[in-house]
């Protein structure tokens, strides 16, 4: 394992969250690499420094006031009764209209799920889990929904997704209208941990990071040979 690969995994190594094979390989590398060992030491020191940052201490009076205020607000809440469900936002890649209320959204879901003919005939084999504004679209359901205040599911507002046409995959960013062709091998690899890949794209910008790094980063199970094979099959690079 080379230093670049090791350093990319040192945080996970420090957390003990790597599979045994990778953990052993990194330990072996660290046994003879002073620079990577120094990197690991820096990571451990940083974690300790973050851990040492304390929340300002609150005295008994603070909690007394906190409890009193909360009690009053809870009493007001009991007087008001249970609130109506918050409105859901609905957005669908196929260009369906945006709905503002839970009632309309629920009716729309029922209609969509009841009419298979409305779905695309040439569906991709793999689906992309998308994340925006704290909502999540399930990989296995067209219209999974998540209400973050309870455990119910609400509807996502995707901006990044797969397009599949004539047996070709394209990654599309609807916020910029940019697209990137992508190989099926890459899609299969991403499917191992689709949400991690999407999360990387969402938070690290589609064009600011190498897709090679992304493929390697989230595919903890892929061998070096699998990744090399993937690089060669990647269409746009």
């Amino acid at each position: 394992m080379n230093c670049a690969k090791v350093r990319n995994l040192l945080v996970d190594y420090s957390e003990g969250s790597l599979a045994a094979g990778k953990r052993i390989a990194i330990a072996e590398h660290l046994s003879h690499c002073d620079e990577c060992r120094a990197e690991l030491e820096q990571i451990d020191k940083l974690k300790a420094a973050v851990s040492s940052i304390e929340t300002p201490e609150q005295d008994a009076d603070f909690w007394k006031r906190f409890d009193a205020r909360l009690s009053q607000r809870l009493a007001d809440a009991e007087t008001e009764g249970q609130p109506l469900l918050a409105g859901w936002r609905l957005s669908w890649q196929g260009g369906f209209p945006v709905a503002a209320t839970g009632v309309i959204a629920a009716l729309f879901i029922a209609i969509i799920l009841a009419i298979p003919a409305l779905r695309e005939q040439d569906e991709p084999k793999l689906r992309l889990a998308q994340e925006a504004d704290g909502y999540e679209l399930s990989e296995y359901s067209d219209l999974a929904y998540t209400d973050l205040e309870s455990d119910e599911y609400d509807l996502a507002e995707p901006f990044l997704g797969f397009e599949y046409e004539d047996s070709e995959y394209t990654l599309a960013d609807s916020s910029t209208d940019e697209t990137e062709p992508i190989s099926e091998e890459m899609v299969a690899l991403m499917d191992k941990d689709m949400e991690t890949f999407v999360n990387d794209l969402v938070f690290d910008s589609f064009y600011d990071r190498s897709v090679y790094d992304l493929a390697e980063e989230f595919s903890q199970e892929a061998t070096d040979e699998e990744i090399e094979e993937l690089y060669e099959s990647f269409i746009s690079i």
Partner: protein
Amino acid sequence: MTSDKDLIKRFLDGERAAFDELVIRHRQQVFATAYRMMGNMESAEEVAQETFIRAFKGLRSFRGKAGFATWLYRIAMNLCYTELKRRKRDTDFTPESPVAKADAPHEKMAEEERKMWLERQIQTLPFKQKSALTLRIHQGLSFKEIGQAIGCSAGAARVNYRHAVLRLKEALAHSGEEL
């Protein structure tokens, strides 16, 4: 000690005091988490209050798939996210300084300054990275629990955490600060 599950059941059966017990049990951690996310006491208190109000209103629909504490963190994180997004003040954080002791040695003051610098850097992290860092290091949550709290997979939570650490490390290297 009575479990959260039992207290929830008692509350749903009509025992109002059971919810008060849940508040006392979890308020410190909810408040501390909100403080780390929001960066000031006033906002943290408001988030903590609102978290328990929403929990009170929504407890009947809590299915118990995640732990109660994790569910509280999820509500709190959602509130923090909404408020931070509204304010767009990711870089406006001024850490509330700890009370300075008159006879503090120079090394101690330097350590406090380093902590404040680090707190400022943490406040500039993207929301999910800051969340993952806070919940992992300060609350000791597993990546699965962090994922449940911030609405992503365990793998994504791990990636966010990793990126948070690496960003802070890079900021440290550029600043010349030492730990």
